């Protein structure tokens, strides 16, 4: 059964990829990439990686695709025919692929419980993390505590991306209310997308609620700061898409988002510094409380919060920057 699911998913993935290679319509390619992401999220579930599936669906199929679509608005939807020969790339790819396949012959069998990968470091995570960390989701334990520094690094990567996006694409400063006194009335008169706006407004609280659930339930089930941050960002992306960038900017000023993005990193890093000050190593949550396990709890909750805040604000901010570039004169249309 599992084999069947696996094989059919892999088959569909292959089809998608072949379509991506062959198609010339960028729009179709981007949509296919979204599908590819969703399919791989499914395969992750089939392979027991629920957290990864969650993230892949939210990030790959969600944010990445949205950003790619925003890019397509400016760049156009069609790839031009290239005169370049495809021989060299094909050769490189074939050699690389052949090398990998050759390597697989000595690789441990897929799914075999005796594989070395499962028996050195992983054992301890599975056997001892429930006692050492005290939370059921081992992925969260490893992510936030055993390999907490990796996660700090990845928050910083997100933060770095924000720096890059902001330096490349400037977020528009919204026309202030004082400058355009008629704007609010105008908008009410010509509310462009009534159905969508209402739906969005109804959805938003639920999305945010769900984000919070994912944020704080990450210890027990799939989820955590990243996923929550992405979902949170999605709420505002939805709002932006239906109400326009100016309204969204009024709702969440960029300066606040920037401060939050930095703040999230600092919350995470600050936890590490505090643990250092309390006599432990950097990011050693044991010292945060008299009881090591509750210390781990506190630490994980705090750093997940930092992750969530940074990811959400970075993604929102980046999306605003993309929209500013994609729809440059939206503000004037009002």
């Amino acid at each position, binding site marked *: 059964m599992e084999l069947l699911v696996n094989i059919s998913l892999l088959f569909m993935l292959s089809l998608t990829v072949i379509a991506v290679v062959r198609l010339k319509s960028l729009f179709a390619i981007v949509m296919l990439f979204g599908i590819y992401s969703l399919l791989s999220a499914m395969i992750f579930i089939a392979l027991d990686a629920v957290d990864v599936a969650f993230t892949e669906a939210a990030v790959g199929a969600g944010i990445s695709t949205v950003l790619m679509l925003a890019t397509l608005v400016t760049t156009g939807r069609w790839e031009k025919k290239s005169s370049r020969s495809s021989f060299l790339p094909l050769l490189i790819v074939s050699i690389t692929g052949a*090398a*990998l396949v*050759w*390597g*697989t*012959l*000595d*690789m*441990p069998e897929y799914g075999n419980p005796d*594989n*070395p*990968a*499962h*028996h*050195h*470091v*992983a054992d*301890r*995570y599975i056997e001892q993390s429930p006692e050492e960390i005290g939370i059921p989701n081992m992925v969260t334990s490893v992510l936030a*505590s*055993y*390999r*907490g*520094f*990796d996660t*700090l*690094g*990845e928050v*910083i*990567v997100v*933060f*770095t*991306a924000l*720096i*890059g996006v*902001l*330096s*490349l694409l*400037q977020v528009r400063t919204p026309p202030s209310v004082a400058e355009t006194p008629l704007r609010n009335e105008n908008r009410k008169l010509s509310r462009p997308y009534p159905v969508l706006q209402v739906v969005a407004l109804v959805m938003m609280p639920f999305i945010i609620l769900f984000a919070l659930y994912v944020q704080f339930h990450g210890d027990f089930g799939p989820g955590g700061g990243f996923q929550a941050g992405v979902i949170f960002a999605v709420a505002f992306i939805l709002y932006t898409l239906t109400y326009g960038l100016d309204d969204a900017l009024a709702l969440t000023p960029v300066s606040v988002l*920037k*401060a939050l*993005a*930095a*703040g999230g*990193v*600092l919350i995470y*890093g*600050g936890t*590490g*510094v505090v643990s*250092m000050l309390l*006599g*432990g*190593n*950097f*990011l*050693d*949550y*044991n010292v945060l409380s008299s009881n090591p396990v509750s210390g781990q709890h506190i630490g994980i909750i705090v750093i997940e919060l930092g992750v969530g805040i940074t990811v959400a604000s970075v993604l929102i901010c980046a999306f605003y920057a993309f929209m500013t570039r994609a729809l440059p004169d939206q503000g004037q249309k009002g």
Partner: protein
Amino acid sequence: MIASHLPALQVVVPLLGAPFCFLLWRSPRLSWLLATLISWLTFAISIALLVTVNNSGTIEYAFGGWQAPWGIEYVVDQLNAFVLLIVSGIAAVVFPYSWISVQQEVELRQQSLFFTSMVLCLAGLLGITIAGDAFNLFVLLEISSLSTYTMISMGRDRRALTASFQYLIMGTIGATFIIIGVGILFMLTGSLNMQDLAQRIPELDQSRALHVAFGFLITGIGLKLAMFPLHLWLPNAYAYAPSAASAFIASTATKVAVYVMVRYLFSIFGVNFSFQTIHIQWLFVPVSLFAILFTSIVALFQRDIKRMLAYSSVAQIGYMLLGIGLFNVTGLTATLLHLFNHALMKGALFLAMGAVCYRIGNTFIDSMQGLGKQMPWTMAAFVIGGLSIVGVPLTTGFISKWVLIQAAVERGWWPVIIVIVVASLIAMMYIWRVIEAVYLQSRPENAKNVSEAPLSLLIPVWILALANLYFGANATLSSELAGNAAATLFSGTGF
């Protein structure tokens, strides 16, 4: 108490300093000041680390209190303490320099973002160097890469954008290759910790999968360090980035990548596997010899001096790989020495070009004619750096070449020596072009008259230029550090 946390602080200080730099976006000056402060602090930390390592041996630091291999570990030994010193030292010189240069070359809006990126890049590079965990290395690699792409894209020329994009694609492919390699290693050993991997890999000597992992890692790292012929991203990236960024990246980023290469070849895969099973030297030696000659010749024909220096960098990376390929302690010493020396010389040269760019707005050889009279100090520093590239005695470049030749002599590979000598001749020619234009031609009538660069640019330039002379005249310290590290790597005991 602080002393025991030094390895963490080395990376955490810039890592957490960056958000503060960013928060000061309204005042680029403040964020620059903070960045400079951070760079000095990290420099102090790396000196302290080097001293500690020399006195009491390898330091290990377990993040989160989780012992390796379960947690992430930082390991400082003689090798990476040395590299840390190079990176943070260059940062401590370049960061103060960047203010004026950035003022002129980067839009006001982007300035504090630029400084933030620089701090992030520094953090990333230091992290790569100090990391004892293969996957953590990847994460920090991405931090440094993303911030580098950002800095490059801030160049004024629109080609900066395409250069940055090209680098992004190549860099990401490289990073992906690295994670494929790490993934296979994990699959075979179940560990990500470098020391742990080093212990487990010898058991797998004949595994085809291990060979593939090796191939992917070397290719991935090769992309990052611009190993010929994977260097195509480098010249544009260095040429169009803002001067401060070029100087910083050129003198640190590829060095760190070379370090990673050395770490993987010698510490993780081990000398036996890399050199006696795979025979990587048979790849490195011909490739680097060809790279040295070819890119030196290409450099001869560049009109933009920054671009010329970029090609020269590819050639210099060739020397470093050659040192590895010679496969003896002396050769490795030469590589490590050249890491240090090349950072000094390329730093001085790029900083001098930044000063020129500050005054005349570009770095084309035609517009630099007769500049020797108008910017005597800047150009004198350039000459020192240039002589160092050529390998003139009493400059650092000579020391590295000397030791490299020594290594080749030990091997008895005379053709290698001939290539080195010929390449030095070519290097002399391309440096000479500049000297001739700058000193022996008069300033064209229509060219604008400029004055000497401001002191805040000159002082960093001269710090590096004098360092070139000092470490060229007295290389005992640097060669001892490099030699010890090389000997430890070869003995296989070291990590």
